[in-house]
């Protein structure tokens, strides 16, 4: 009876691709099942979310907000959602849900052997399955959350995030896709990886769509720096066929995202001076990450965008995978302008006409 579960662990047999985990966590469960090194965690499922809305009596209000949202100006959204957001923040949790969240967090503490185990809390929406929509940066991620009370607080924040200005006004091809659909949300709970370095890998070159390359951006500390864009990352380009490192762009990094014990939260802290000018990944790690990306792309049958972290011990962890959406949606154009025999291609070349590119004025 998985359909009625409030909690589903990533390594549960029923988890891979299960819609009640939403897009992101459903993918991660598939990755876990395929044997990739995904940090352990569980989802507080879309079933739990709907159960909460129902017992809190918020379903009608949700329907009302969704109905009016497409007609609202951005400035009007806040007023219109105030009651709903207040309800999500303060309505009592159903006892069974509250109990199960606390029980499973306690189980997480036992499994990891860490009291108040720090976790990342993030939304994993059903809407992420919509073809071609990345929703990049539309949902908040809460890092280094410790203790069940705090976890529940940020779980509610994730639910409320469904009705934030950015999400309700997110348009695809002119439609307010999320506002109009009855999408649920899963809240993913995943053990924090105290990253020495972290980053994002594309299994194609995001600049020109070249599928023979693996491109990664990486920085010291947590990957927030790369994702948010406030740290200039190191950039590596690897040949997907031969695994040669074709390019490395390094820039000095003076600040990194890291858990700051004095603040009790994740923030920008100075990078160890010995590391500031050094590449945050060794060549061996770049190649390991590239091979990982190639395997993930094969496993998932298409170009991917992968978030990962490297532990202080140098172990790689997969934090997120999702289909690449920009180039994958486009029809690829060919390189050869005119079909010719190979000899005619060579004869043409020695007359100054290249096989590829000359027709479109490139080169």
């Amino acid at each position, binding site marked *: 009876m998985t359909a009625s579960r409030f909690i589903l662990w990533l390594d549960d047999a029923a988890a891979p691709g299960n819609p009640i985990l939403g897009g992101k966590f459903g993918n991660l469960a598939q990755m876990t099942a395929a044997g990739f090194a995904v940090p352990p965690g569980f989802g507080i499922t879309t079933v739990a979310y709907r159960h909460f809305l129902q017992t809190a009596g918020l379903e009608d209000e949700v329907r009302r907000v969704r109905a009016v949202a497409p007609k609202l100006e951005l400035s009007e959204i806040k007023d219109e959602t105030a009651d709903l957001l207040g309800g999500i923040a303060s309505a009592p949790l159903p006892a069974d849900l509250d109990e199960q969240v606390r029980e499973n967090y306690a189980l997480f503490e036992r499994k990891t052997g860490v009291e108040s185990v720090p976790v990342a809390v993030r939304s994993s929406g059903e809407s992420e399955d919509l073809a071609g929509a990345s929703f990049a940066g539309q949902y908040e991620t809460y890092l280094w959350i410790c203790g069940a009370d705090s976890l529940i607080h940020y779980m509610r924040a994730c639910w409320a995030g469904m009705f934030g200005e950015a999400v309700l006004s997110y348009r695809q091809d002119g439609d307010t896709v999320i506002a109009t659909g009855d999408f649920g949300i899963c809240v993913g709970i995943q053990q924090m990886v105290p990253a020495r370095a972290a980053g994002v890998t594309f299994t194609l070159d995001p600049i020109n769509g070249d599928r023979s390359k693996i491109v990664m951006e990486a920085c010291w500390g947590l990957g927030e720096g790369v994702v948010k864009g406030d740290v200039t990352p190191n950039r590596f380009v690897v040949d997907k*066929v*031969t695994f040669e490192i074709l390019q490395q762009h390094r820039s000095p990094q003076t600040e990194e995202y890291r858990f700051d014990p004095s603040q009790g939260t994740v923030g920008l802290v100075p990078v160890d001076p010995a590391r500031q000018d050094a590449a945050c990944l060794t060549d061996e790690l770049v190649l390991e990450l590239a091979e990982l990306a190639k395997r993930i792309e094969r496993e998932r049958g298409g170009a991917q965008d992968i978030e990962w972290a490297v532990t202080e011990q140098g172990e790689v962890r997969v934090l997120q995978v999702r289909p690449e959406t920009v180039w994958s949606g486009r029809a690829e154009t060919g390189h050869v302008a005119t079909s010719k025999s190979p000899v005619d291609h060579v004869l043409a*070349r*020695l007359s100054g006409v*290249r096989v*590829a590119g000359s027709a479109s004025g490139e080169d």
Partner: protein
Amino acid sequence: MTANDKDKSAPQGASEAHSPAEGRFPSPFDLRPPEGAEGWEELYPYYVLISPERREMEEGKFWFYDGMHNPEPIYPFDTIMTENWWVAASQMASRVWPIPLAMGIDHRIINGYLYISPNGVSDPDEIARRTEEFGRRAGHYFENWDEIYVEWVEKAKDCIKRLENINFRPLPDLDPEENVFSHRGIYSTHDMLSTYNRLIENMFEMGSYHFEMLNLGYGAYLTFREFCQHAFPGITDQTITSMVSGIDILLFRPDDEVRRLAELAIELNLDEIILKDTTPEDVLAAIGEAEGGGQWLGSFENAKDPLFWFSTGVGYTHSDPVWMDDLRFPFMAMRGYIEALRRGENIERPLEAILEKRARVTEEYRALLPTDQDREAFEGLVALTRKVFPFVEDHNLYVEHWHHSLFWSKVRELGDVFVAHNFIDDRNDIFYLHRNEIYGALYDLLIGWATGSESRGEIYWRPVIERRRRIRDALTTWSPPPALGKPPESITEPLTIMLWGITQETVQEWLGVDADAAGDELRGVAASAGKVVAPARVLTSSEQLYDVQDGEILVCRITAPSWAPVFSRISAAVSDVGGIMAHTAIISREYGLPAVVGTGYATTTIHTGDMIEVDGTEGVVRIVERVAR
């Protein structure tokens, strides 16, 4: 000369190397010879010298230094090699095929070094006319490639056989009596002259075969390479070559034989004798006395001819040691293999693994192409390039190694004749004479023999040779700037790009480098990925190869393919000059060492002992720490 001599004089040459303010390279007329080399022009024929009466033409051309073929000042006799391809390579592009965009490649010798300048075709009507002819003629070669290559090998072998049969002996006291009793009517003098003519003609014959198919082979590779670079931007040359290069090419044979001899030595318990650090002659003598030594020596002798006619240089210079005459090189390699075998390593080239990788890499790239038309073009070009590549890779063994090594040994035989007739003291002094001067000297010798007078040559040539030796030694201290004259607006001539790796970017790089202020960082072509920090070993001649120590980084003008054995000792390679199809690139890639080629100034900026970092991924060489000098 030693590397140190060179070091002291480097700044002098380097200061001339560059005039960035004008955005052009130095004029060929502004270069001064190094001290002691005044009058160097007498070493060379008039037509290879920069001509003041054609100043405008000379200065208006873009000349670049061909350190790839001639890294050292050219000996007067050795100009036969550069003069050969001045005509033989040029005529293939200009008059035989004719390649629509290209005429020939012009030559000048400046301060002893070869500068070349490709001539292009720009008139659209002319290009169209040439295109039609080219398609018909070159098409015939491509369509019938395999058969023509079989014929080529027969021609090459026959040419070598005739060269083997050319012999020079001092003239006898009395002409042989068979010339009298057979009523021949011509005698030793005529034989001597005609044998010399045959020697020179034989060289030009092989020199012509050299280029019969080469340009077309390069053309197919260039087309495939550009297609790959367009479809997979940033793909490395190493990867492109690995998809089409031969697996069991002839050029590996000499090294294969050395491996086999190493294995046999261990099998016969002779390995200790070979590992002893004595001369090859002593080793061979000791093996002869050892049990089982006869079997090994038999195997050794079998392997030698013809595979040890193998030059340690590019084969264009008589002074590059040849295995046949200098066994130190194969023995050095053999010791390396014996030590590896004793450590339990496998020294065989993993042919099956290479083949499997080639198939996988080719298929993966093919699958990455977006359209059927692209995949069809890719498959066709892979197949065609694989067909032409055996010639591209193997012609070196027939031409530069086997034929040219034998040719130099025949010239030395003629040197012995001049020694016997008291013209010179050392057989190698003959190389201080241009081939046309030798024809004159030979006639002078015949006069002396015929008349019974002392030939003037007996007192004439020694001082000339001494003067020329001093001049040439002085020229070795000069550092040729990479380019002269007017930078080209664009480089479209395919062979310049293919052979010498010269592109618009290279030219801009050269223009931007101030050799005096080059500092501690050099940029070049990233030829093989990886990064290494180690002491540098700067080589300016093949002779210095024996100085190389384990783990050092080889810094040279250009590497030769037959330096392969030394690649098992070094940790990285850096060169001044480098094109992707340079004879050398083919083999150096095999070794997978970090390499940066085409740095322009590495041998003048870096000194032996300097700690340097080679970044073969970025194409950068950094001097980490300079040795005190």
